[in-house]
């Protein structure tokens, strides 16, 4: 059994780990606040949002561990665009990396799916069906890496559409910023899809991902600051 993983040029090794660390920080921050708010009002949507962002943060943690081992243990890979890890029962590290990649992909796709499910209520049968398709998609992404990025892109599109309609209906500027953040993150997936052709696309994808998560962080800060400001204004009137 083999698994494919896209990879940047040698000079970019390590930079992608830092970009993923920024993503982990943003996702964990939102998950933490969402869990905190769930304890206040017990609205299940906060819980689902916390689970979704926690899964996405965990997926990046796995990905970073994988990249760390790949860069520091398999440094001889040089300028390869796609790394192929083989499942051999004799090499524990490579086997762990193999399952780590699958777990990272599974957590990412389920994280996006749970986020989508907050806005689109579905029957148990639909949830079962989509969960099955996510499992199948993760399985087939082993040998064709872009199956994973395509599925992530499709899930992100559904999330963007949900936020866009909410923004249109309520005209709430923070929801608009949230829509743009997820749009940018979705665009990064397009670059990862074609990174097998030229690994500079991987660099572009990572930089776009960084912009997306920074915009998500800015949106979050604006929301919290506005809530605090509103609080102070009310106290002074």
């Amino acid at each position, binding site marked *: 059994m083999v698994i494919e993983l896209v990879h940047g040029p040698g000079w970019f090794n390590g930079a992608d780990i830092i970009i993923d660390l920024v993503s982990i920080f943003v996702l964990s921050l939102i998950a933490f606040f969402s869990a905190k708010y769930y304890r206040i009002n017990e*609205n299940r949507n906060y819980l689902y949002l916390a689970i979704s962002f926690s899964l996405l943060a965990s997926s990046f943690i796995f990905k970073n561990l994988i990249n760390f081992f790949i860069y520091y243990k398999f440094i001889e890979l040089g300028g390869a665009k796609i790394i192929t890890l083989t499942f051999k029962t004799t090499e524990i590290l490579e086997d762990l990396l193999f399952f780590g990649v699958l777990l990272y992909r599974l957590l990412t796709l389920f994280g996006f799916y749970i986020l989508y499910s907050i806005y689109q209520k579905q029957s148990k049968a639909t949830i079962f069906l989509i969960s099955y398709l996510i499992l199948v998609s993760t399985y087939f992404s082993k040998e064709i890496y872009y199956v994973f990025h395509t599925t992530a892109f499709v899930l992100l599109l559904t999330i963007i559409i949900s936020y866009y309609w909410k923004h249109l209906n309520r005209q709430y500027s923070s929801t608009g910023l949230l829509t743009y953040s997820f749009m940018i993150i979705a665009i990064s997936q397009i670059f990862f899809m074609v990174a097998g052709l030229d690994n500079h696309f991987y660099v572009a994808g990572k930089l776009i991902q960084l912009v997306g998560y920074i915009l998500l962080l800015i*949106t979050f800060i604006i929301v919290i600051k506005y*809530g605090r400001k509103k609080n102070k204004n009310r106290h002074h009137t």
Partner: protein
Amino acid sequence: MAGKRTKTDIIHDMLSSIIDKGMQIKPTHLMYRSNLSHSQMTLYLEELVRKNFIKKIDKSGYGYLIITDKGLRFVQKFREMKEFEKAFGL
């Protein structure tokens, strides 16, 4: 039309009413401002005192309710939460 108020919404409305009245309020005023019946209000007041969100004091022979720092922090968190809820469309 706004939906039915949750327990947290009611607690926030009660604490906000105290803040709007200058951090202290008479229980009857609080009842009218929070749109609660006497029995509901008694239950909520017990909970707010137990959670240390408000304190009962006597002032010139009248009973008053004052908001504590913990109560003020709850209001701040609640308003942050509402902004978060609006932004994420929860």
